[in-house]
């Protein structure tokens, strides 16, 4: 079954489309992963990237990240209309950091403990918010996750108090 049948994409499909950065690059520092496999007519990410690290010739092509230019700043994360951009940082020992978009209540705050969800909404552990900032009401939440979960965690849920 492909992502169009399931509603979530497998890492193997991302790999096949050339959307996963090489392992050496991942270990060097933060880098964005575009989980945007369909040719949607949209080029917002190309325009918002301060480093001109996202390429697209025609408006409907899938975004191509220049792994050398991207510094994983995350500016694109809350601006992607498809919420398909995630920054992964594997350079720190012990934990991986993931920056993901979040548009729910309660408001995310540094230090909050959150439930980590995988691409099909299954809880896969607990994480801690290390940073949260907003662009036009979409939060970019950076959360620390167990290192082996970097390719799994794609959402967080903040339990209500």
């Amino acid at each position, binding site marked *: 079954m492909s*992502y*169009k*049948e*399931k*509603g*979530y*994409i497998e890492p193997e499909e991302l790999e096949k489309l050339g959307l996963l950065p090489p392992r050496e690059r991942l270990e060097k520092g933060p880098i964005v992963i575009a*989980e*945007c*496999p*369909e*040719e*949607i*007519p*949209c*080029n*917002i990410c190309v*325009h*918002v990237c301060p480093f001109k690290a996202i390429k697209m010739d*025609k*408006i*409907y092509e899938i975004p191509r990240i220049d792994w050398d230019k991207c510094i994983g700043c995350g500016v694109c994360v809350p*601006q992607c*209309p*498809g*919420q*398909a951009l995630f920054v992964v940082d594997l350079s720190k020992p012990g934990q991986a950091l993931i920056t993901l978009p979040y*548009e*729910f*209540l309660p408001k995310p705050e540094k230090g909050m403990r959150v439930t980590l*969800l*995988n*691409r*099909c*909404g*299954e809880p896969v552990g607990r994480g801690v918010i290390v940073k949260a900032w907003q662009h*036009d*009401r*979409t939060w970019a939440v950076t959360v620390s996750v167990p290192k082996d979960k970097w390719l799994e965690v*794609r*959402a967080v*849920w903040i339990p209500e108090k």
Partner: protein
Amino acid sequence: MVLSDYRIYEHPILDFRRGRRVKFYYRDKVIEAYEGESILAALYAVGYRVFNRSPKLGLPRGAYCMIGKCSSCLSIVNGVPNTRICIEPVREGTHVEPQEGLADIRMARKQETVETIKVETDLLVVGGGPAGLKAALVAAEQGAEVVLVNDHFVLGGQLVKQTHKFFGSRDYFGGTRGFRIAEILSKKIKEFDNIHVYTNGFAYGYFKGGVVGVAIHGDHPINLLVKAKTIIAAPGAAEKGLDFEGNYLPGVMGAGGAQTLMNQYGVRPGDRAVVIGSGNVGLIIAYQLLQAGVKVEALAEILPRIGGWFVHAAKIRRLGVKILTRHSIVRAIGSERVEKAVLQAYDEHFHPIPGTEKELDVDLVLISIGLQPDTKFFAQAGAVMKWVPEVGGLVPIRTWGQETSVENLFVAGDASGIEEATTAFIEGEIAALSALLKLGLGGKEVEARRGKLIDFLWNEYRMSPVVRRAREGKFKVTVSEEDMEKIRMGEYP
């Protein structure tokens, strides 16, 4: 009777800044509402769910489309029957009565003579959604006198309820939330002295000499007769209904109807929903229901694949919403409103598989199986139409410049075939540029601008494989000026 409160006070994206308090009467009850709400939204917010009855069997009718397209909510407002209370604003002291089936016209308020006003204009725009607003602005910028009529009391069409950031090109508001685009365009419209706006105005007919009759509703109803040199009609689309047992029950609603309630008026449409249909509308609404605090039990899609864009599906999947492909609804259960829904699995021939029924505990069944272009205006005007399933059904044949077979009548937006907001903006702009050329208000520059835009629309934007079906559909109803001349003469090329 103690009524409930379905208003949303905290939302991750929207701030509901409610207007002045307004009181009106429903039957003999005083209803407290806020200025800017529609009568239906205000009644829904305090717990009413049944607004009319079917004429023969007396079955309950609830909210369905919320945008004045269906006839589910017809009520008697200040003695006027058949009023669509979903697009009728609340006003202090208004008397609203439910209409039990067909109204008795003899009981209606004494027949008043409505004032008729005649105006002449360069361009009449029917519909204040993305296509209509863009068209009005483009024409006004070049100095045309524009009359804009809109059936809703708020401009913006369906942009007003779109809380997500739009895809697309920066040049056409890509990255901006839909309701913000409506605010930006509506504000811009006000800056032009040469755009004359009539809200609450329903274009009821096209007459000889390019005259359009517009019924303006409200405290001082007007019969507006607009003699226009050119007309751009962009009346949008309506949500399709689905045939299943119990589909009449209040709680079965167009997905867009629920979106209007929660995002435009800040009224929670229910507590637990099932969404039928996985096009972009269904996927987006499932996400927005979660943002409004509504639980989404499942999203069902009868086809083996998700219809909308993958990224929209991924957004709800990672929050745990189940997408059941090869499933649809067979039954809604309840007495005066939906209490349960039954889904069933379907095989590859679309036959239900026995023994796969699943009962869901829901109070909302949201139908998002597609939209249907609203083309009554074109049909009545005599435009040659064609049935094109790829774009939702019957649509007027048009030139590359958006002109229909009725000379000087242009079509733009979803009424020209279902696509989305970016193409509506572009079609609105192309139609306006064509109208300007007809009016003699545009020279070589306008012609070049139009050519560039048509090229971008057809040869770049619509070339995306995910929107190719719509492109193919539109291609079937778009003809050259020469072929359109033949169509006007009665031959079909």
